[in-house]
């Protein structure tokens, strides 16, 4: 039970993904996003090695389509898997195996894909997509957040008529640098997507201050003074 969105920002070329799930600490899977290469995010009955393998193949020059076929040929349990892959040219594929838990499915757009399993229904993915598309000129991390919120508000995850909470959530955005530009996580919380908004909004207030401190630490003010000035 998870819903995710992967995307390449058509304006800036940045890659980003957002994910929310009942499981704890979904954001530990930082191997799923590789700067200047792409994103491969697997879920449902996922093997973490799959994302590493898919990104290695992307880096070698294979297309997402070909990688998907190769993964299928090598995996006797392929029908249990769900994943999406996007490359630098915004070629994007998604796959939802028939043995993933219902409701499961995917929407593939021109530069993004959203997919999930153990969802309330297709409305969860529709909520994600419309949230993502609401502000097409917005920053990718904020669009991803609106996508996750759209999925939450449309019913999120459910099984046997019972709603399951999002207990962890994650947004990661990379640009040209090797290390992520935005990587915010909620690992265990009763309302992880709500909490992720709080963390991301707070992070955005600090982002320039932290960047400047990295670049030129001699000129900055102490963080406690910065925090005092925020209030």
């Amino acid at each position, binding site marked *: 039970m998870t819903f995710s969105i992967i995307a390449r920002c058509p304006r800036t070329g940045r890659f980003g993904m957002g994910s929310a799930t009942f499981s704890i600490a979904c954001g*530990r899977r930082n191997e799923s996003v590789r700067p200047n290469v792409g994103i491969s995010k697997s879920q449902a009955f996922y093997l973490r090695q799959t994302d590493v393998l898919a990104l290695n193949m992307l880096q070698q020059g294979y297309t997402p389509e070909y990688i998907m076929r190769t993964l299928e040929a090598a995996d006797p349990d392929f029908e249990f898997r769900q994943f999406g892959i996007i490359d630098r040219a915004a070629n994007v594929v998604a796959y939802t195996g028939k*043995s993933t838990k219902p409701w499961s499915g995917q929407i593939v757009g021109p530069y993004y894909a959203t997919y999930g399993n153990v969802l309330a229904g297709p409305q969860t993915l529709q909520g994600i997509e419309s949230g993502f598309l609401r502000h097409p000129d917005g920053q990718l991390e904020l669009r991803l957040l609106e996508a996750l919120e759209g999925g939450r508000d449309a019913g999120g995850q459910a099984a046997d008529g019972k709603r399951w909470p999002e207990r962890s959530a994650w947004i990661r955005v990379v640009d040209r640098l090797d290390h992520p530009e935005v990587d915010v996580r909620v690992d*265990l919380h009763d309302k992880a997507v709500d909490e992720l908004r709080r*963390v991301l909004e707070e992070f955005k207030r600090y982002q320039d201050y932290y960047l400047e401190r990295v670049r030129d630490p001699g000129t900055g003010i*102490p963080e406690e003074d910065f925090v005092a000035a925020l209030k």
Partner: protein
Amino acid sequence: MSFSILARCARTGQLGLGVASYSIAVGIYCDASVRPGIGVTFTQGNALPSNNRLALNALAQGWGSEQALRQLIENDPSFEYRQIGIVDREGGAAVHSGRSLLGYAGHRAGAGWVVIGEAIAGENVLNAMAEAFEAVPPEDLEARLLAALEAGRDAGGLAGKGGRLPERSAALVVWGVRDYSDMDLRVDLHERAVDELRRVYADFKPTAAFYEERARNPRAAVSAMTFAETLRNEQRRAVT
């Protein structure tokens, strides 16, 4: 305004680090700070995220931890504002505390581990972290790293001009032989981030193996909901 421990487990060869900070989302700076079979590194004080890959690339080329550290220092005009730790795959430890760090800054190093702290209450924080880490060598590396963070917190933790500062974020990262982490937990924004990290860890630890097994053998898997309920019942029984 952070205190951290970097270490190699002599028993398993795992590499990992624990970090607690007044800055928010400090775990973002742990990106690529560990590379299996190579080493673990972290730069704090004024973070320099590109240092992680540079340090590990230097180790991977064959430099030892001391030489890698020297290269990081010579590569960075602001090195006096940084605090850097490196532990290589043989447990070789190297550490640098720049002279321009704010407040009390210092470090400790031993066989296979480094403790670094800046804007901390004093040297007792460093000593407490080192003692806690060394006290339980048979434990899992992540448990030892977390115990060290808790000891640092309990020994006074972070200190600014106006007294104690809270740990607002924390991270716990351990890698083994695989292409992805064995454990990677974070608290990004919390009033008591080390306490919260313990809570997340306590819930995550028993589920980690479940998710791996589920993927390897999906046809026989129990659902995540069933597993979560079983776990809750077990925990309830353990309490009563």
